């Protein structure tokens, strides 16, 4: 393995490299620091200085922020979790068919799913908005879940198909001889064996769904509003009414909105890294 010469490397070059990296890393994390320290300040402290850790903390900002974003936070969690799970479920079925079954039209149907990557989001946004406005859905959540699942299909199917194709055929055929149907094979062998890939796909898809702003801002009603939409509204509301926003509470709401991803990445970071690096480009 390259670079496995041991940890003895403290040459000048190494020290400089590490110093530059630490500096860049801290700069990249600066917004987290900025929002966190300022989330504990009152208006006066905020006006005085933006960079210090306040001497007197104001945790009540978090109570204020929580009261404001509690609803949107729950909505975001519901929508993101449902979308990602549904994306995986439907993509697994399709990827199974594409990877392991032989049927007329296989190549055509795969091309149809895959060509979706060429349809840009801005092209469909407005018609989708009009379409959903005229559609009577059983729940407003579905107005964002269904299109999001559709958009996630090509990427998920592509990665899962490759993973399913790599499963040793003997394993599947043995189970098949024991009389297992396709659904049973999928549930008992294919999915369990592919668990790490499923987690990778889930977490890579989850980030953009959690951050999605445009379509939710157009189609979700007040009660189903997601976090990004709510955050923009607070900020905008402050400016429009010419009242200086309560920055402490605003920053607290920013910190709270980062917590779910922080928790998730604390456990699943390596699946994200693996997913991006192994699924990477070849020639």
């Amino acid at each position: 393995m390259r670079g496995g010469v041991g940890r003895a490397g403290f040459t000048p070059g190494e020290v400089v490299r590490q110093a530059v990296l630490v500096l860049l890393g801290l700069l990249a994390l600066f917004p987290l620091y900025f929002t966190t320290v300022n989330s504990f300040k009152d208006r006066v402290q905020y006006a005085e200085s933006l960079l210090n850790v306040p001497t007197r903390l104001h945790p009540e900002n978090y109570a204020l922020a929580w009261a404001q974003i509690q609803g949107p936070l729950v909505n975001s969690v519901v929508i993101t979790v449902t979308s990602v799970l549904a994306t995986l479920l439907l993509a697994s079925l399709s990827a199974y068919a594409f990877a392991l079954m032989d049927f007329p039209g296989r190549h055509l149907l795969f091309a149809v799913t895959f060509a979706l990557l060429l349809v840009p989001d801005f092209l469909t946004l407005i018609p989708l908005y009009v379409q959903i406005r005229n559609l009577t859905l059983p729940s407003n959540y579905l107005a964002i879940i269904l299109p999001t699942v559709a958009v996630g299909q090509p990427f998920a199917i592509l990665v899962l198909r490759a993973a399913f194709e790599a499963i040793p055929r003997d394993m599947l055929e043995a189970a098949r001889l024991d009389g297992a149907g396709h659904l049973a094979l999928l549930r008992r062998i294919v999915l369990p064996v592919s668990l790490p890939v499923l987690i990778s796909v889930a977490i890579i898809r989850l980030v953009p769904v959690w951050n999605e702003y445009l379509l939710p801002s157009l189609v979700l009603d007040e009660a189903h509003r997601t976090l990004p939409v709510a955050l923009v509204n607070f900020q905008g509301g402050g400016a429009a009414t010419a009242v200086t926003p309560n920055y402490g509470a605003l920053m607290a709401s920013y910190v709270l909105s980062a917590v779910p991803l922080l928790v998730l990445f604390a456990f699943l970071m390596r699946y994200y890294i693996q997913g991006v690096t192994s699924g990477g480009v070849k020639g």
Partner: protein
Amino acid sequence: MTALPGFRSGSASPRSVLTRLRRNWPAYLFLLPTLLLVGYFAYYPAYIAVTRAFTDWDGLNPPTFTGLENFQRAVADPVMGQATTNMGIWVVLGTLLALVMPLIVAELVFHLRGQRRQYAYRTLFVIPIVIPSLVLLLVWGDFYRSDGLLNQLLGAVGLGGLRHEWLSDPHTALYGLIFLGFPYIDAFNFLLLYAGLQAIPEDVFDAAKIDGATGLRRVLRIDLPLLRPQLGLIAMLAIIGNVQYYISPLVLTSGGPGYATTVPALLMYQTATRDGEYGYAMAIAFLLMILVVVLTLLSRLISRGNR
């Protein structure tokens, strides 16, 4: 080995299409939910967008066909002209940002001694992904305010004369939005380049060392040429992404002051949602889509021609 029904296998005996259709009905059942969703929530709206570009449409009433009128209007519209210029600047600078910083960091991390150290730093540069992209936008919007961090820092280092209403000045607003998000180390691009470096065979580096290619020379002579597929992919994604991008001007400046931060995609959005001119909006979207398709094909051709 016996060919099992419903399984793909190279040795399958030729059967009639009808038999295969009947045998494999579960395959179609498996694909049905995906195809329905993709058809209704992706292809159908795309079809609507393309066909409505040639009509006068308010999003509610049936559209009336107007031929190329919307396109003529778009081409003649001076606002579209400025928006296109803004987009051009954004695409060039945005693509450079997407390439340069992730590349520098990937090189630095890759040349650290020891797997564990590399792993630690790799993780460090992925952590910022937990910051929701809108939070990053809004926080930077605060940095740019008159009483914001940027002006405070300038004052603190004695450059108070440079203090600025960054996003309200037509000369700085566009660049303020483009250069938002320092130090521009996108986790995805960084990981892609890092993985690319890891995929370079050990003996290539050894040979370079013997030839005396070290440090910057090695980066230029060995790493960059061998990272071409990754750099090409990132550049293509950045170009296409920046052509379509309009969230920061939408949220932070509404395209202003004047039209200083208006880009065609934002114009498309505002024309529909604010002015109710859905037909014209779809014509702008159509033109942008053509641009995206052309750019995609072009980059395909370039990367293929170089192989």
